Structure formats: C-alpha cells, structure tokens
C-alpha cells in the first residue's frame, strides 16, 4: 500500500488530502467522523484538534525515534498522544465552553483514533521530524476535509444551514434523519459511493489503453 519513498515535501503533504485520504480511502478513524459531523462547525473543530494532535505527536515520535526501544514503542506513542489530547481538551474548554460541550467525550477519544497511532507507527517512527510533521499536517488536513464534507452535507440537509448560517429558504423542511445517528452512516456511505464510482470510471477509462499497449 505504501508508496515507494516519496520525494518532495509537498507530496508528503498533498497525499493525505486525496490519494491516501484517511477517511475516504483508508477508512480509518471512523468513530469521530460519524459522531461529531452533525454540524459543519463541530466537524471543523474536531478536524483541527485531530490535526494538531497528529502533527505534534508525529514530530515528537520522529525526534525520539532512536531513543525508544522497539518493545515499548507502542506504550510510549500512546503516552505522547494522550498528552497532546489532554492539552487540546483543556485548550478547547478555555476557548469555548459550548464547543467543548458539543464535542463532549469525543475530544478525549482522539487518543484511540487508530489513524494517529497508525501514522506514528507506520510513518513517523521511520522518518525525520520535518517530514513527519508534514505528513501529520497533510493527513490531518485530509481528515478535516472529509469531516467538513460530511458535516456540511448533514447540516445543510438536516437543519438547512451551513456553519450556523441559514442558507436554504425558510420553506425548506429539514431532513431530521440527517442529524440523527443513522444520517451519519448514510452520508458517509453516499460519499464512499461517489468516490467508488469515480474510481471505477477512471479504471474503465484506463482499461482500453492498457489493452492497446499489450
């Protein structure tokens, strides 16, 4: 799955956005994606918090990668991640109590987001600090993008607004199902369908070319 040693730093950043998008392509870190994407603002805040944690933990893991023995590496990574999550938790509570309340326990649950531990183990423990930070930023940006895609659709259809601003005409009857838990599953399924469809079309387009080459 992993690409052969990518070269340019921009590529490390961009790959997380689309080609290896953590949510749409790797289907990782689903729990927060579904749980806090009922409005676009919650989704954005969650995405940024996760990005910060991933960026910091990736950097620290990369810096310490020679000092940590293999046997205790997972325990150390979890320790580092839990620390930054606690930091984010207190920071969000200090900035806005309402936001903290809306995200609830899901801020603390960033600790067990398999995406973060996965990046620390698969990428940061094998690369330099700078590249690892970019990887964290890119993956985080991809995660945030996916969350906002989901949150935007759910908020638009579920309450007729976007980022808290009413955008649909007053006569619009909100589809309440979209902000219910079931709507989270449906919206993510719809996005995955769209992406599968695009992928299949591209493959179908590439097929005749490959045949012609043979």
């Amino acid at each position, binding site marked *: 799955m992993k690409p052969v040693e990518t070269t340019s730093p921009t590529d490390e950043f961009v790959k997380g956005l689309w080609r290896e998008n953590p949510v749409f392509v790797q289907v990782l870190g689903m729990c927060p994606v579904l749980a806090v994407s009922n409005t676009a603002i919650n989704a954005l805040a969650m995405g940024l918090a996760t990005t910060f944690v991933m960026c910091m933990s990736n950097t620290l893991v990369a810096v310490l990668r020679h000092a940590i023995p293999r046997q*205790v590496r997972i325990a150390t990574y979890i320790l580092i991640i*839990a*620390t930054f999550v606690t930091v984010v938790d207190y920071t969000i509570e200090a900035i806005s109590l309402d936001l903290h309340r809306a995200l609830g326990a899901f801020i603390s649950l960033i600790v067990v987001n398999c995406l973060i531990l996965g990046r620390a183990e698969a990428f940061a423990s094998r690369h330099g600090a700078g590249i690892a930070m970019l990887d964290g930023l890119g993956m985080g940006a991809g995660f945030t993008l996916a969350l906002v895609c989901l949150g935007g659709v759910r908020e638009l259809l579920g309450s007729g607004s976007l980022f808290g601003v009413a955008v649909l005409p007053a006569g619009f009857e909100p589809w309440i199902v979209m902000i219910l838990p079931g709507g989270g599953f449906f919206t993510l399924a719809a996005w995955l369908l769209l992406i599968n469809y695009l992928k299949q079309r591209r493959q179908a387009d590439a097929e005749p070319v490959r045949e012609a080459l043979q």
Partner: protein
Amino acid sequence: MNGPDSERAWPMYRALVGVGMACGLLIAIVFAGTRPAIEQNRAEALERAVFAVLPGAERRVTLILTADGRVTPDVEAPGERFDAAFDADGNLIGAAIEASGMGYADTITLLYGYSPASETITGFRVLASRETPGLGDKIEKDPAFLANFEALDVSLDETGMSLRNAIETVKPRAKSEPWQIDGITGATISSDAVGEILTRSTARWVPLIVENRDEIAARGRDEAR
C-alpha cells in the same frame, strides 16, 4: 545473569519514565495555564443560566446545602450546590437549582429558578440532553411549553414540609391550574420527563429553601455591602 538483562532493560525504563515525566509535566503546565480561563468560562455560563431562570437577578452567590439541611457559603463544604440570586440592592430574588432525570433518549439535566416570594418556579433551562432533534428538543425551544414555567405554582401546604399540589404534566392546551404543565405534541415523553424531574426536585428542595430563607437572604446583604 543480571548484567545483560538490566542492560537491555535500561533503555526501556529510560524511554518510558523519561517520556512519562515530560508528558506529566507538560499536562500540569497546560492545566495550570488554562485553569483561570476555564473557571471564568464556567462561571459566566452559570451566571447567564441563573439570570435567565430568575428574571430581575443581577448578582449571584453559590451556596452549599449540607446533608443536615443547613446552608453555608463555604463552597468547599460537603453537600449539594445551588445558586442564590439577588437584585442590585441585595434583595433575594430566588434560588437556581440543578436537577436531572431520565428523558426519552438519555439523562436530561436542567436548571430551574424558584422564587420564595411568589412560591413559584420562574423559569428553566436545559443544561444537557440528547433528546431527538426536531421532536424531543422542543422542551428547549417551544415557546408555548416554556411559557408554562414563567409562574408554575409550587406553594407549600400548612405543614411546610411538602407541596400543596404536585406538579402535573397534562395534555397540550389542557392546563387549567397554575401547577399544571401543558405537554408538547410529538414530545410526550420528553415533556413528561421535565415535569417529573421538577416534581421530584421541588418536593425535596422547596421546603429546605423556605426553611433557610433568612440565612440565604443574609448572603445577599453581605454581597451588596
């Protein structure tokens, strides 16, 4: 035997203990740094809620009700918290009390204001709920429902120990007595739950507030001075 083993174990201890100490220190620093802002946010949010459920209130003091039914301003004392609210001159407006109970989907927590002068509930705010959006969450938004709580009768009987009339949730638009609550169509269980929570909480709190009224009012005069 011990030599090579402990030699191999040393980097592990160093990594775990070192990282652990550094992490603990970082958390403690951030905790100390954000504490004032968090406390202030919480106090402001509480103040907004208290002033919303007790119209006319301009000052607020957090008090503790101890297990033996006394009221003390010592917030470290063991017991249950509530807030007393006063007007600008320090006259008692009422008490804001938190109560919770099961709703349709999960626990509903709310804050209500009680005025000893009029012996009524003067308003309530939902602090936390997971009621169904669009249906159950009308308990927070429906103006007709909220109007029930502008002067909900919770007067005490002659003994001063229990309510004269228990709060009752009736069918929508069937309210005929000051101690009744009009339910909400499509949110029967949620609106019943609010009535139920208030009934249980007022039955315990109202006699205690009335009994300690002078003590509570004295705090307001302290504040105004």
